[in-house]
């Protein structure tokens, strides 16, 4: 089957390093950290007091219909902003036609338990938490009616499409930490197969809320000190405008690079069984027709916890062997925390931009790992001159 070539023509992001992509890259250049004291809730009693919290972010400029902001929570606002910036960066305007689609990777929201608890707390008979018919009859009407609509994960891609007037294919991935990477991969496939000419693809998530800290604490991921954590949580969004190569060339778009390979899977994370991640990497490289010696850089998940670093190290050694000594390894989580479903696209975008300043073509592999062993690999060919040509 004749697959279309897919290129990256726009990047937009809201990250702990900056409320737009240019600011984020500038912070990187200045060796700033995006980690800081958590202020969205009082973390005094929690195992981690520091995180990649986004500050001073105003969603209003990015919402064509500001009334919709009441229907959104943080990650949705980051998503709309990042997607809008990616669209603008690609030199495209919203509302053009149905040839532009959206594909987002996201996670669960905090579900606003205080709202649910408040409604249940109004129950004079204390039955609501366990008696479902009673709850629906007597308590449901006390719940803020927008509660569900705000918290549904697929609302992220819906709001992006509504605010940017994008009517093409619309998809939401919920595969935990690799969701954003998968969103890039699925959008890539959609364009390859001619389902859309342009896809705004990326991830949006927020880990700065009590339930996330509790969950990861129970999973024993916080293994450092409260003020200087090894594992920290972050938040943000990054989108790439992925586009049919011919379409991009025809309209004279600036081309950052080309997506040439993608694979995903799920493996056991035990060190002995890490051939699964290696397998995912090899599948993506096979699609790209790349040999291990031809890779310039790897943006690995680099999750600061022994189980993940071991699995990744073993897989990368298995695939690249001696080549690892000369391959540049990107690591961003020490500066922005784990941005969960947004981590794949945020880190891929930062790495891509770093490599684009090298002045020559570069081959980058982005690998990712999920909490329960989900894997993904994306192969990017990066062009230095913006015209999509190799040097």
């Amino acid at each position, binding site marked *: 089957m004749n697959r279309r070539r897919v290129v990256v023509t726009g990047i937009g992001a809201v990250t702990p390093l900056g409320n737009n992509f240019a600011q984020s890259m500038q912070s990187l250049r200045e060796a700033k950290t995006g980690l800081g004291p958590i202020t969205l809730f009082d973390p005094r009693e929690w195992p981690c007091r520091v995180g990649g919290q986004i500050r001073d972010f105003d969603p209003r400029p990015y919402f064509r*219909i*500001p*009334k919709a902001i009441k229907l959104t929570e943080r990650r949705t606002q980051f998503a709309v902003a990042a997607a809008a910036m990616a669209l603008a960066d690609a030199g495209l305007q919203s509302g053009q036609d149905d040839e532009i689609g959206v594909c987002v990777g996201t996670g669960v929201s905090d579900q606003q338990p205080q709202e649910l608890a408040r409604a249940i707390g109004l129950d004079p008979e204390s039955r609501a938490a366990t008696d479902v018919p009673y709850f629906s009859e007597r308590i449901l009407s006390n719940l*803020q*009616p*927008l509660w569900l*609509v705000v918290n549904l994960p697929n609302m992220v891609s819906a709001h992006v499409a509504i605010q940017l007037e994008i009517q093409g294919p619309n998809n939401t991935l919920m595969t935990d930490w690799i969701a954003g990477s998968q969103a890039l991969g699925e959008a890539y496939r959609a364009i390859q197969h001619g389902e859309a000419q342009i896809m705004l693809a990326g991830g949006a998530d927020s880990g700065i809320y009590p339930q996330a800290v509790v969950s990861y604490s129970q999973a024993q991921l916080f293994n450092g000190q409260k003020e200087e954590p090894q594992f920290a949580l972050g938040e943000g969004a990054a989108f790439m405008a992925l586009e049919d190569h011919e379409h991009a060339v025809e309209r004279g778009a600036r081309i950052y690079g080309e997506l040439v390979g993608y694979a995903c899977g799920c493996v056991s994370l035990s060190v002995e069984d890490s051939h699964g991640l290696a397998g995912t990497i090899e599948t993506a490289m096979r699609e790209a027709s790349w040999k291990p010696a031809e890779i310039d850089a790897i943006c690995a998940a680099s999750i600061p916890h022994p189980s993940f670093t071991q699995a990744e190290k073993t897989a990368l050694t298995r695939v690249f062997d001696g080549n690892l000594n000369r391959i540049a390894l990107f690591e961003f989580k020490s500066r922005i925390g784990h941005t969960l479903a947004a981590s794949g696209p945020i880190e891929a975008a930062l790495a891509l931009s770093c490599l684009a300043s090298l002045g020559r073509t570069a081959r980058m592999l982005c690998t990712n790992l999920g909490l329960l062993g989900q894997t993904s690999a994306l192969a990017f060919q990066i062009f230095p001159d913006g015209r999509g040509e190799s040097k």
Partner: protein
Amino acid sequence: MYTRDEIERRVTEIVAQALDSDPAKVHRHSSLIDDLGAESIDFLDIRYRLETAFQIKISEDDLWRGFVVGEHRDLLSENGVTEEGLKRLQSEMPDFRWERFPEGVRRRDLPRLITVRTIIEYLVSLLGTE
């Protein structure tokens, strides 16, 4: 017990907040749908905010039918507002943009008649005033 002024002030505030409108643009005769951009989900939101602010319950029936026609139920035929009914509404709401309905007000147009005044009058009839 609230005064009419208090009810009017709170309703205007709630509608402005729910619809992200400039309060200066929220007039008594403003149609929530045509002038302030309200969608069906906004009516649920406004109802909830009114219930919370005034400590009352507003039923489904009241939300869609009572809000608009209330005591004017006799002004409705199967197709919509009768001619006589339209004349009566026009005299009661002279500042409303009646030119939006050149062919009369059909049943499906009824939600567009919901104005800030509609909500105020509904609450006044429900709560009474000081």
